[in-house]
């Protein structure tokens, strides 16, 4: 059963006691006495008694009720304090968790930077490995090529010497006979020209493939370029017009003749191969401060901008599989660098490419 509210209870009790008192107090009084003076006195005491007893009752009821309220209030206060403490506690542990998280975050970030660093180191190592692999492959190729060309050169040079000696003998014999035949002179001259040309090709091949490790040879850049062109003649003949703008002084650099042959022949071969059908190859040399600038300009297909930074990467090639190893320019780049030089490229697709080689020259030249 629902409990009655305190105000109803107290009003009801008051009504009940007051009503009963009014109804029955006089009758009780009349039961004890009939004297009117005494009755009047008792009436007064009865009033006082009623007031006092109701006040007492009020006091008891209110006190009981209020004490209940007060204890509830106290408990509430206690709860409130406890809640505050709880919240504080929770806040503190949350703060601790946050700071822990941020430490973990920092650590993670550190680890992430470390991983990034290691990653870039790995990439560098991979690049170096590729370069070394390319160099090894190239060195191996050049070593076997060197042995082979030296052998071939020796074997060609000897019979060439027979022809040379034979024609010299024939010439002096014919001159003694005074056979002043124009045609004989023409024949002899063409044989001699042939001997000189074969001789210079063999010598060029020999120089190109020689295996000297030192960098103290005097390298005549013009003659190296000329010899490279001679060897590349099959690529050039009837197809590419060669324009030469050489500096007046023949530039000489200290270095390794064989390596410079390889560098220039790779650069020139690439230029020739960039020209699909017919075109022009311009080679200019210019002395600038203590350097020689060699510019090789081709009218070929050009190099797209996105490839320009990659063309000296080992194994990078745009040629069909089997048509190129992608080592040529990478090797040229390394060899020019080994000579304290610089190799740079400018290109425009379908217009052509300019390769610039900068090499230090021996100062007394200037």
């Amino acid at each position: 059963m629902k409990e009655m509210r305190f105000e109803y209870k107290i009003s009801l009790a008051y009504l009940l006691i007051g009503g009963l008192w009014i109804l029955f107090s006089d009758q009780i009084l009349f039961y004890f006495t009939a004297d009117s003076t005494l009755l009047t006195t008792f009436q007064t005491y009865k009033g006082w008694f009623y007031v006092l007893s109701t006040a007492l009752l009020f006091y008891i009821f209110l006190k009981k009720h209020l004490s209940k309220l007060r204890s509830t209030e106290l408990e509430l206060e206690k709860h409130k304090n406890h809640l505050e403490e709880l919240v504080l506690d929770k806040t503190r542990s949350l703060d601790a968790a946050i700071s822990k998280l941020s430490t973990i975050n920092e650590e993670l970030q550190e680890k992430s930077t470390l991983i990034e660093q290691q990653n870039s180191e790995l990439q560098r190592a991979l690049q170096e490995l590729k370069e070394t692999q390319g160099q090894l492959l190239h060195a191996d190729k050049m070593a076997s090529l060197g042995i082979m060309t030296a052998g071939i050169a020796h074997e060609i040079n000897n019979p060439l010497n027979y022809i040379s000696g034979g024609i010299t003998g024939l010439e002096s014999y014919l001159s003694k006979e005074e056979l002043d035949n124009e045609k004989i002179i023409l024949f002899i001259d063409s044989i001699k020209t042939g001997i000189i040309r074969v001789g210079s090709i063999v010598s060029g091949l020999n120089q190109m493939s020689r295996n000297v490790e030192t960098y103290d040879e005097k390298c005549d850049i013009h003659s190296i370029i000329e010899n490279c062109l001679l060897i590349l003649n099959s690529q050039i003949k009837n197809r590419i017009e060669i324009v030469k703008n050489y500096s007046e002084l023949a530039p000489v650099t200290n270095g390794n003749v064989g390596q410079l042959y390889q560098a220039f022949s790779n650069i020139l071969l690439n230029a020739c191969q960039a020209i699909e059908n017919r075109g022009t190859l311009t080679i200019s040399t210019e002395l600038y401060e203590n350097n020689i600038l060699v510019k090789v300009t081709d009218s070929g297909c050009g190099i797209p901008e996105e490839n320009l930074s990659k063309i000296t990467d080992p194994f990078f090639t745009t040629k069909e599989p089997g048509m190129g190893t992608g080592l040529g320019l990478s090797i040229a780049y390394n060899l020019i660098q080994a000579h304290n030089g610089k190799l740079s490229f400018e290109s425009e697709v379908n217009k052509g490419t300019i390769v610039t080689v900068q090499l230090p020259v021996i100062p007394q030249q200037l």
Partner: protein
Amino acid sequence: MKPKILYVDDEPINLMLFEANLDRKYEVLTAVNGKKGLEIVASHPDIKVVFSDMKMPYMNGIDFIKEATKILKGSLFYILTGFEITGEIQDSLDSGLIRKYYGKPFNLHEISNEIEAVLCEL
């Protein structure tokens, strides 16, 4: 009397042509290897100029010349080679063991002129 010159080469055709081209001016002696060359040197100590191929059986041109200089004091020595210049040849040039080296195919006129010039010096 014609001055004596010696040519050592393991290719007989080279020897034959050398001799045929120069025998009007000089007494040309030839040998097919260093050993034979040293035998000739021993029996002809008046040889003025010696030409030698580089790569030959038994001993190479420089080794032959080193031996030959022990007998031929004051003679001049040359290397004729089918290869490019090697470190060994360069050292011999630097030390004065040989006067010059010629690559094959060599120009016989050039060689003849050289002999003529150095014979005047001697």
